[in-house]
C-alpha cells in the first residue's frame, strides 16, 4: 500500500511538473494518446508481473508482440483469414508459447532467463521469416477491428470533441480487474505469492508449484499476445523486425517500478499499472518538453534506479525503526517488572 502511494506520488509529480512546464501536456489529444499507450504497455506489464512474482523473468515479451503482430497481419492480408479467426489463432500461438516456457522451466528445470532469452531470438526470427521480413499494412479494410486499439468511447455528459476514453484503456481495466481478483482472491494467487517467496515451503504445504508456475508463464505470454494484437492494430503497418522490440524491458521496468521484486513473492496489479503510466508519461514529457530524445533511455533508467534505491532505503529505515521500537518495548517491560 505504501509502495503504491509512493509510485502514485511520483506519477502525480511528473504529470504536474510536465503540465506546468508545457500546458500542451493536458491537451485532450495528448492525454488521450498517453492514456492509450499507457494501456497498451499496461497489458504486457501486468502479464510479466505474474512471472516476476514467481521469481522468474520473461525476456521474450517483445518478440511475442512482434510475432503475434506479424502473424495477425499476415493471416489477414496474405491468407485472407477472417478477423475473429486470425485473432483467435494468434492468441492461441501466444498461449502455446507460454505453455512451452512453463514446461521447460518447471519440468526440465531450465533457467527462466535462458529459456526466454532463446525465445526472444526465436520468435523474432520466426516473425521475420514468415513475413519474408516485409512490412505489412492493414490498410483501410479492418477499421472495425482497429477500433480495439484506436477507438474512443465518449464520456456521457461531455461535449463531443472533448476527452473520450480510449478503448485500450477499457481493455486494460478489464484485464487488471481479472488479474487483481486472481492474485488476491483466489487460492492460485496466494499460491503464486507463497511460492515466489519460498518454493520449497510451498511444495511442502502440498502446492503443485510446477503447475502454478506454468500458469504464470501462460498469463504472461497471453498478455503479450493481447498486447501484440493491440500494438499491431495501433500502428496499422507492422515491421516484423521492429514491432515490440525492447518492450520486454519496458514491461519489466514498469513491474519493478510498481513494486514487484525480482526476488519474487511481491507485487500488486495497481502498482504495476501505475508503473507503466510513469514510464509513458516520462516518455511523453521528454517529447513535449523538447528534451533531446537521445536522452530518453538515460532518463527512464535514472528514474527507475532512483525509485528502486528509494524503496530499498525506506525498507532499511523500517527495519531499523522496528528494532528500535522492539527494544524500547522490552526496556519498558523490564522497567515495569523490577528484577
Amino acid at each position, binding site marked *: 500500500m505504501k509502495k503504491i502511494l509512493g509510485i502514485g506520488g511520483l506519477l502525480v509529480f511528473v504529470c504536474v511538473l510536465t503540465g506546468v512546464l508545457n500546458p500542451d501536456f493536458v491537451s485532450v489529444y495528448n492525454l488521450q494518446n498517453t492514456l492509450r499507450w499507457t494501456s497498451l504497455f499496461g497489458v504486457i506489464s501486468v502479464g510479466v508481473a505474474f512471472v516476476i512474482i514467481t521469481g522468474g523473468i520473461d525476456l521474450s515479451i517483445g518478440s511475442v508482440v512482434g510475432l503475434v503482430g506479424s502473424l495477425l497481419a499476415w493471416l489477414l492480408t496474405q491468407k485472407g483469414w477472417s478477423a475473429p479467426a486470425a485473432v483467435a489463432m494468434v492468441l492461441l500461438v501466444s498461449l502455446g508459447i507460454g505453455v512451452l516456457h512453463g514446461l521447460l522451466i518447471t519440468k526440465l528445470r531450465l533457467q527462466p532467463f535462458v529459456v526466454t532469452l532463446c525465445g526472444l531470438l526465436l520468435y523474432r526470427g520466426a516473425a521475420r521469416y514468415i513475413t519474408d521480413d516485409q512490412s505489412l499494412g492493414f490498410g483501410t479494410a479492418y477499421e472495425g477491428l482497429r477500433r480495439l486499439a484506436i477507438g474512443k468511447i465518449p464520456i456521457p455528459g461531455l461535449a463531443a470533441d472533448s476527452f473520450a476514453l480510449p478503448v485500450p484503456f477499457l481493455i486494460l481495466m478489464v484485464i487488471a480487474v481479472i488479474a487483481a481478483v486472481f492474485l488476491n*482472491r483466489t487460492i492460485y494467487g*496466494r499460491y503464486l505469492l507463497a511460492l515466489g517467496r519460498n518454493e*520449497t515451503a*510451498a511444495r*511442502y*504445504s*502440498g502446492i503443485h508449484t510446477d503447475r502454478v508456475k506454468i500458469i504464470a508463464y501462460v498469463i504472461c505470454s497471453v498478455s503479450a499476445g493481447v498486447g501484440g494484437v493491440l500494438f499491431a492494430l495501433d500502428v496499422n503497418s507492422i515491421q516484423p523486425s521492429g514491432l515490440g522490440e525492447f518492450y520486454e524491458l519496458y514491461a519489466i521496468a514498469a513491474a519493478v517500478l510498481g513494486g514487484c521484486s525480482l526476488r519474487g513473492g511481491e507485487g500488486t496489479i495497481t502498482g504495476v499499472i501505475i508503473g507503466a503510466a510513469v514510464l509513458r508519461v516520462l516518455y511523453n514529457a521528454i517529447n513535449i518538453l523538447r528534451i533531446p530524445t537521445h536522452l530518453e533511455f538515460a532518463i527512464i533508467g535514472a528514474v527507475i534506479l532512483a525509485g528502486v534505491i528509494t524503496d530499498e532505503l525506506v525498507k532499511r529505515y523500517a527495519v531499523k525503526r522496528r528494532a528500535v521500537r522492539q527494544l524500547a518495548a522490552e526496556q519498558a517491560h523490564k522497567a515495569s517488572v523490577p528484577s
Partner: protein
Amino acid sequence: MVDASAAPLLEVRQLSKRFPGVLALRSVSLRVLPGEVLAVIGENGAGKSTLMKILAGVQKPDTGEVLLDGRPVEINSVREAIGLGIVLIHQELNLSDNLDIGANIFLGREPRRCGLIDKQRIFRESQPLLARIGLEQSPRTLVNQLAIGQQQMVEIAKALSSQARVLIMDEPTSSLSQHEAEQLFRVVHQLRSNGVSIVYISHRLGEVRELADRVVVLRDGENAGELAREEICHDQMVKLMVGRDVSQFYQHQLHAPGPLALEVRGVRTLAHARHSIDLQVHAGEIVGLAGLVGAGRTELLRAIFGVDPMLGGEIRVAGQSVRVSHPRDAIQAGIGLVPEDRKEQGLVLEMAVRENLSLPSLRRDQTRGFLNREREADITRQMIGDLRIKTPGPEQIVQFLSGGNQQKVVLGKWLAMNPKVLLLDEPTRGIDVGAKREIYRLMEELADKGVAVLFVSSEMEEILGMSDRALVMHEGRITGELQREELSEEAVMNLATGGGRNPAGVSQ
C-alpha cells in the same frame, strides 16, 4: 593430565549477547587451559554456538571480555581470531571442494612468488601437516574426492597451518561414521599432547565422557555448571543440561495404541536404495525414530510425505494403499510433515502468521477457486489460541516470531488439516526450553486425540522421554525396535551404531 590451577590460555568473562527476541548469552564465563580438551555441552539453544562464534570472531558480544594469555583482546573478525590462534571448525565444513587440499589449507593466505601463487611451496608445506593428522593423501587431491571424515581432517590441517592454539570443534562427529569418528578422536588426543587446547562441542555424551578433561555445561544462555574429569558421567551431564529431573520434563504416559494408522511396506529411498524399510504406527501412538545423522531417517519421512520419490514399496494410511508422488497426495491421505528445516521447508518467512497457517488448507476450503477468507480467519484464530502462539496478531510476519512460536505455526498448519498421521523431523531443534515443553505437550495431546505420531530426533533425551516405542536406524536400515520399557541410551546407541542386538528378538 592437565594442571587445573594453571593460568588459563583463553578466558571469557561475563559475556552477554542479545539477538532480536532472545538473550542468547547471559553473562557466561569460561576458561580454557593450555593443552586440555574442554567439552562444552548443552541442549539446542543453550548458547554454545553463539559463544563459539564470538570467540572465533564471527559475532561480537554485547558486553563482557575475552582474555588471551591473561590480556584482554578484542576479536573483530575471523581473520583476527585466527591471528590470535583461535580457529573454529564449523559443523558444516567450509571447504571449496573444487580446489585441491593444498589450496584449501592456504586459502586466503597463499604464499606468492612474483605475484603468482607459489604452488610448490603450498604442496611442500602441506605435506607435513597432512602427515601430522594422518591423512594419507597428496595435497594435490581435489577435496570433492575425499570422504567427509577426510575433509574434516583437511579443516584441522588448515587450522594447524595457521598455528592454532585453541581449536574449537562444533559437533565434529555429527556426520562421521564410527570409524571416522575414532580417527578424529586419535587426532584430538595427539593435538592435546602437542599442547593445543581443544574446545569440543557435542551432543554425544559418550564421546564427551571419552575425550574431555573438563566439561562446561550451558543452559538457556547461562553457565549451568562444570564437571572435572573424575566427575564426568552421563547422569551428571544430563542433570546439568536439563536443569531438572528428566522424568518431570517429559510428562509422558504410555498411550494405548489404536488401529493401524500408517504402514510403510518395503519402501526404498534415494539415499539408501539398497535397503527397504517396513514400519507401522498405530493411531494414538508416539513412535520415535532414532539414529545418527545420515542414517536415512529424514529421507524416509520425505519419501512417505512425497517430497522425494520412492523407489518401490507401498504406503498405507488407515488400511488404504496411497500413491504418493507429491506432498499433496500425502496431505490428501491425511499425513502432515513438520520438516527438519523450519525456515526453508516449513514456513514462508516473509508471509503473515495467517497466510502460513492456512497454506495447506486453502485448497480444501476453497469455493470454486476463490479463497474462503472467513474460514481462513477461523483457522488462524483457533490455531493461535489452541497452540498459544505468541504473536502480536494474525498479520505478524512469521520471520519476527521466536523459533518456538515459528514451530507452533508449522504444527498449526497441519493441525488445521486434522491429520491421521503426523510426521515430525527434529521438532524441537533450535527452540528454547519452554517452547520445547509445549511442543511435547502438543504431541501428547495429538496422540490422545488418536493421531499417529512418528518423530525423528537426534536428541537422546527426547527419544527416551517421548516415545511409546522407538525404532532405530543405521545406514539406511531399521536395526531394531525398542518398547518403552526397553528404552535406554545404551540400547539406542548400540542399534544406532549398527551394534549387535538381534532384531528378531526385539519384535517379540
